[in-house]
C-alpha cells in the first residue's frame, strides 16, 4: 500500500501531468498523420526523455504510443488512409461507415473501444507482471539464455510471412550487436580501427533511422500522399456507443484478449493483433459477408485488440527485459539509460517506479477519451497539414535525436545507414522488428550464453539440466524444427493424395 501511495505521489505531480498531456497531444498528432507511426513518435520522443526523471520519461512513451495507435483510426475512417499500420485491418469497414453517413458512430466506437481495450490490457499488465516477476527472479543464466532465444525466435517467426526472411533480419540485428568491445572477453570486434565503434552500435540512432528515416523515404518517394478533400465537421461521437457495446461485447472481450496475448509475444505488435482479432471476429461472426463493407463488430474487435497489444507488449519488456514490440524495444533502451534495468529485479529495487509506470497505463487509457474526443473535433484541420511541410521537420528532429544520445555526429551517420538498410529490407519483404530486437538483445544472449558455457565447462547438456531452462530449451528447439516438420507433413499428405488418385 505504501508503495502504491509513493507511486501515486511520483505520478500525480504537476510536471509529470504536463509531460503526459504534451506527449498525449504529440502521440495523437503523429498517429493521425498517415506515414507517421506510433513507433516513430516514440523514437522521436527518446532524446527529450533523456532529460526527464524515469517516471515521466516512461509515462510519456506509454501515453504517446496509446494515443498514436488510436489516432491512426481517424484518417482511416475519414480518408481511407490508415494513420498507423495498426489501423489497416479495418480501414475498409470504417470508410464504408463514413460513406454511409455514420462517421461519428465509427469514430466514437474507435475511441471508446480503443480506450476499453487499452484498459483491459493494462489490467492484465498490472496483475500479471508482478506475479510473473516473482517466478522469474529465480532464473539463472541458462534460463535467461533460453528465454531470450525463445523471444527472438518468436520475433523472427511471427513478424513476416517468410520465416527465412524473418531469421535473416534477426541475424543482421544479432551481428550488429557484436560490434564493439566483446561482452565477456573485453576484446574489440568488427570495429575496423574506428574508435566510435568501440562502444558498439548505439540502439537509439539505429532505431530512429529504421523507423523514422525509412518512413520518410517512402513519403517523399510518393508513398505517403494525403488528399484531405471535403472533410465535414464531426457531430456527436457518443450516441449509439452503449447499444454497440450491448451488441458486440463478446467481440470486445475476444479482441482485448487476443490483443493482450499477441502483444506479449515478442516481435508481434499491435498491427498483427488487429489483423488476428479481425480475422477471428469474421470467422465467428453471424454476418461475415459484412466484413470489409462496414462491419461494426469487426471494428470493435480489432480496435480493442490493437490498443490492448500496446499494454500487453510491456509484460515481457518489464518482467524479462525482452520487448514485446518496437515501442517497448525503445522503452527498454530508455529504462537502461535511466539506470532501471528491466527484468524481475526492477520490481524489487524500484517498486514505486514500476507501480507508477503501471498506473500510467490506466491513466493514459482513461485520458484517451477526453483528449481523443477533442482531437477528433479538430482532426479535419490537422489532416490538412501537407506531408511536404512535415517531412523536413521530422528529418531535422531525427538528426537531432540521433545526435543527442552521445553528442556525436557519428550517430547521425548510423541513423542514416540504418534508415537506408531498413528501407531496403522492408521493400524486399524483410521485417525490421527482428533486427531491432536482435540488436537490443544480442548482448544479453551472448553474455548469458558465454557465462553458461563457461559454468558448464563446455557441456552443452547443462543447458537442459535445470527444469525451467530445459523446458524453455526444448520449446525453442521445437520451434526451430517446426518448419521442417510442417514441410515434411505437407509433403506426406500430398504424396498420399497423389497415391489415392
Amino acid at each position: 500500500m505504501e508503495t502504491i501511495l509513493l507511486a501515486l505521489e511520483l505520478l500525480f505531480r504537476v510536471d509529470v501531468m504536463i509531460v503526459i498531456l504534451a506527449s498525449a497531444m504529440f502521440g495523437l498528432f503523429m498517429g493521425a498523420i498517415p506515414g507517421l507511426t506510433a513507433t516513430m513518435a516514440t523514437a522521436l520522443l527518446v532524446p527529450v526523455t533523456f532529460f526527464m526523471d524515469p517516471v515521466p520519461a516512461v509515462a510519456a512513451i506509454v501515453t504517446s504510443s496509446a494515443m498514436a495507435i488510436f489516432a491512426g483510426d481517424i484518417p482511416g475512417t475519414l480518408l481511407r488512409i490508415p494513420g498507423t499500420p495498426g489501423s489497416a485491418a479495418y480501414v475498409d469497414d470504417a470508410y464504408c461507415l463514413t460513406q454511409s453517413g455514420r462517421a461519428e458512430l465509427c469514430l466514437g466506437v474507435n475511441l471508446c473501444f480503443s480506450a476499453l481495450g487499452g484498459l483491459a490490457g493494462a489490467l492484465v499488465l498490472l496483475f500479471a507482471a508482478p506475479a510473473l516477476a516473482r517466478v522469474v527472479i529465480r532464473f539463472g543464466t541458462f534460463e535467461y539464455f533460453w528465454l531470450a532465444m525463445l523471444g527472438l525466435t518468436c520475433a523472427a517467426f511471427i513478424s513476416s510471412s517468410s520465416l527465412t526472411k524473418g531469421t535473416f533480419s534477426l541475424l543482421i540485428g544479432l551481428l550488429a550487436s557484436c560490434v564493439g568491445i566483446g561482452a565477456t572477453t573485453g576484446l574489440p570486434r568488427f570495429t575496423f580501427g574506428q574508435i566510435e565503434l568501440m562502444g558498439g552500435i548505439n540502439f537509439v540512432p539505429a532505431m530512429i533511422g529504421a523507423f523514422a528515416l525509412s518512413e520518410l523515404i517512402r513519403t517523399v518517394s510518393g508513398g505517403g500522399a494525403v488528399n484531405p478533400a471535403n472533410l465535414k465537421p464531426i457531430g456527436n461521437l457518443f450516441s449509439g456507443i452503449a447499444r454497440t457495446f450491448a451488441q458486440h461485447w463478446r467481440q470486445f472481450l475476444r479482441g482485448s484478449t487476443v490483443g493482450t496475448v499477441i502483444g506479449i509475444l515478442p516481435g508481434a505488435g499491435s498491427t498483427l493483433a488487429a489483423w488476428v482479432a479481425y480475422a477471428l471476429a469474421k470467422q465467428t461472426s453471424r454476418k461475415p459477408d459484412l466484413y470489409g463493407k462496414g462491419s461494426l463488430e469487426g471494428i470493435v474487435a480489432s480496435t480493442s485488440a490493437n490498443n490492448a497489444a500496446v499494454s500487453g507488449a510491456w509484460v515481457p519488456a518489464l518482467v524479462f527485459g525482452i520487448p514485446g514490440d518496437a515501442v517497448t524495444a525503445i522503452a527498454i533502451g530508455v529504462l537502461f539509460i535511466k539506470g532501471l534495468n528491466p527484468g524481475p529485479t526492477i520490481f524489487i529495487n524500484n517498486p514505486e517506479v514500476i507501480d507508477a509506470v503501471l498506473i500510467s497505463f490506466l491513466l493514459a487509457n482513461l485520458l484517451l477519451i477526453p483528449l481523443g474526443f477533442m482531437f477528433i473535433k479538430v482532426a479535419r484541420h490537422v489532416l490538412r497539414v501537407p506531408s511536404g511541410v512535415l517531412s523536413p521537420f521530422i528529418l531535422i528532429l531525427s538528426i537531432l535525436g540521433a545526435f543527442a544520445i552521445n553528442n556525436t555526429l557519428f550517430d547521425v551517420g548510423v541513423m542514416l545507414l540504418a534508415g537506408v538498410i531498413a528501407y531496403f529490407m522492408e521493400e524486399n519483404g524483410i521485417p525490421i522488428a527482428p533486427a531491432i530486437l536482435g540488436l537490443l538483445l544480442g548482448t544479453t544472449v551472448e553474455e548469458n550464453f558465454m557465462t553458461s558455457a563457461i559454468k558448464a565447462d563446455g557441456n552443452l547438456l547443462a543447458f537442459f539440466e535445470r527444469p525451467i531452462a530445459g523446458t524453455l530449451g526444448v520449446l525453442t528447439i521445437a520451434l526451430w524444427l517446426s518448419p521442417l516438420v510442417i514441410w515434411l507433413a505437407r509433403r506426406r499428405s500430398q504424396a498420399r493424395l497423389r497415391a489415392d488418385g
Partner: protein
Amino acid sequence: MRVNNLALALIALVLGGGVLGVASTFPSPRHQAFGPALFPSLIGLALVGCGVVLAVQWWLADREAPLLSLAPWMRSPATALNVAMLLAIPVFYIFAVDRLGFVPTAFICLWLMLVRYHGRPVLSLFGAAAAAAILQFVFADILLVPLPWGLLQPLAW
C-alpha cells in the same frame, strides 16, 4: 528497389562468409575454451545457412523474378531527386554543422527541403528560420544538447 531471393541469398552468403572470415582472426583466450569469435561465428554460420535456404527458395519458386527491379520512384527524376535530397541532407549536416553552426545548417537544410517538397520559397524562408531558432533554443538551452554556434558565435545567447 526490389531484388529476388537469389540476390538476397548472395547478400546473406557474402555477409556470413565475411563474418566467419573476420571472426577467425579474433584471438583465442589461453585458459578458456570459448573466445570472442564463438558467438559471431555462430551468427556467420546461420547467415550462410539462411543464404542457402534463400537460394533453394529462389530455385523452387522465384526463378522468373528479375535479379533487380527498380522502384517506380527511381524511374521518375522528380521523385528520385526527392529521395536523393532526403539522404543528402544528413550527410550535409554531418560535414557542415561544426563549421557553420546548428542554426545556419538547420536553416539551410529546412529551407531546401521545404522548397523542394512544398514550394513557396519566401514563406519557407521564414518557416525555416523560425524553426531553426526554436530548435536551437529547445535542444541547446532547455535540453542542454551541445549544439555548435559556428558562424553565429558572436550572437550566442
